[in-house]
């Protein structure tokens, strides 16, 4: 099967326990907002796409079957930011290979350069969430899956995160964005997926995401 024109990520019959077969595709520079109640299977879907749990079905990136790509390479290209990102070292800086370039992105999210030396106990939940986003972007993924990336953030930080991601999407990043906030989903999503009791279906399509409309003056 040849890739559909413009499709970066193709999902064909992806399923696992708790998730009915899901099929959809995602183009470069496109953001899909994922809706659904807690426990409906959104996180299961993202984990299956990141290949973190056993799953079946076909997933392709640029037409190449995921099964032929080593898992670590796959996860560098298809990044995943979970709702509660994990940390494994004692200081923030140890989680970054190149803090100097990461710090540029961190600054866009209002995080200081000195955050490198912070012990893990220092940043607030919201700061940690933003640092994890910087960490995920540092891998330069082609697709980024976000699970409630602004859940613990104040309004200013939400705007900063949305602005940063808008710029990345404009540069070609493909995003799957789980959000409980309908207003945010409407702002960021070009298309919408609805997850209900483990079933994934496409729920209407906006020609342009709200942020595109804002970005282009009438």
């Amino acid at each position, binding site marked *: 099967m040849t890739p559909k024109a413009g499709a970066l990520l193709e999902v064909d019959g992806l399923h696992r326990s708790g998730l009915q077969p899901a099929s959809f595709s995602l183009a470069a520079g496109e953001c899909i907002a994922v809706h659904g109640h807690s426990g409906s299977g959104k996180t299961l879907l993202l984990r299956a796409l990141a*290949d*973190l749990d*056993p799953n079946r079905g076909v997933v392709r990136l640029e037409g190449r079957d995921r099964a032929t790509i080593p898992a670590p390479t*796959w*996860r560098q290209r298809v990044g995943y930011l979970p709702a509660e*990102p*994990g*940390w*494994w070292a004692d200081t923030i800086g140890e989680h970054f290979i190149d803090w100097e370039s990461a710090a540029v992105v961190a600054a866009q999210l209002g995080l200081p350069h000195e955050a490198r030396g912070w012990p893990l106990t220092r940043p607030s939940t919201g700061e940690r969430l933003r640092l994890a986003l910087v960490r995920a972007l540092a*891998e330069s993924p082609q697709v980024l899956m976000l699970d409630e990336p602004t859940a613990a953030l104040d309004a200013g930080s939400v705007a900063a995160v949305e602005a940063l991601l808008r710029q990345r999407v404009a540069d070609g990043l493909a995003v799957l964005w789980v959000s409980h906030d309908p207003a945010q989903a409407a702002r960021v999503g070009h298309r919408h997926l609805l997850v209900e009791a483990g079933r994934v279906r496409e729920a209407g399509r906006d020609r342009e995401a709200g942020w595109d409309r804002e970005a282009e003056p009438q």
Partner: protein
Amino acid sequence: MTKDYIALGYGDLAIAATLVLLDAAASLVLHLGIHRGFLISALRMVVQLSLMGLVLATLFALSSPLWTGLAALAMIAFAGREIASRQERPLAGLWSYGLGTGCMLVATTLVTVFALTTALRPHPWYDPRYAIPLLGMILSNTMTGIGLGLNTLSSGLVNRRGAVEARLMLGHPRRAALSPVIRQALRSALMPIVNTMSAAGIVALPGMMTGQILGGVPPGEAVKYQILILFLIAGGTGIGAVAAVLGGAYRLTDARHRLRLDRLAAR
């Protein structure tokens, strides 16, 4: 061979047994509720050791490679059950018993045969009078090491799942993502033998050495034996723990670099 030790009669043991009765009496008076346990365990100890004495006497008399090997396998099998039953978070299915027992089988056999063919060289090399006690001492320590290592590995992976998966999500290979937990598991597996070696002779007089001295062996000779045994234990524990912890880490991940905690037994 001259008897250079004081043989014990059953009467001598009966006198010493009054000390256990004293403990039981203390439990009754102080309402500790462990007098039954005390008496039963003392009785078990007497029966088990007497049987062991009979088995060893028979094995020594037979001096057969077949029976010695079977006895060794039985000891390893029991020790394997001990490892499996001490796991807080055991692997599911046959892996729980199989991994610990398999690693112990390989490690203790290697080290015991190594000692029998290099340092000790009895005739024949499988002489049960050397092979069985040697195996027993290596086995009990290797068992502790493997048990601790596997326990620390599985509970460490459960407790630090978020940290391990965070690295997997960023594309780190499983070996790198698990390495802090693997290191911690190996350290806890090897810590007891390190402590035993540093305390030997200062805090503790090792039981085997004490036994040999009571049996009439000159202290200098007994010490050499003890040093040999501790080296063998260190080797057995190291080989067994590394094999078991790496095997456990392999089982708890898969070829797609996923953390597979679903392969732990359900609680």
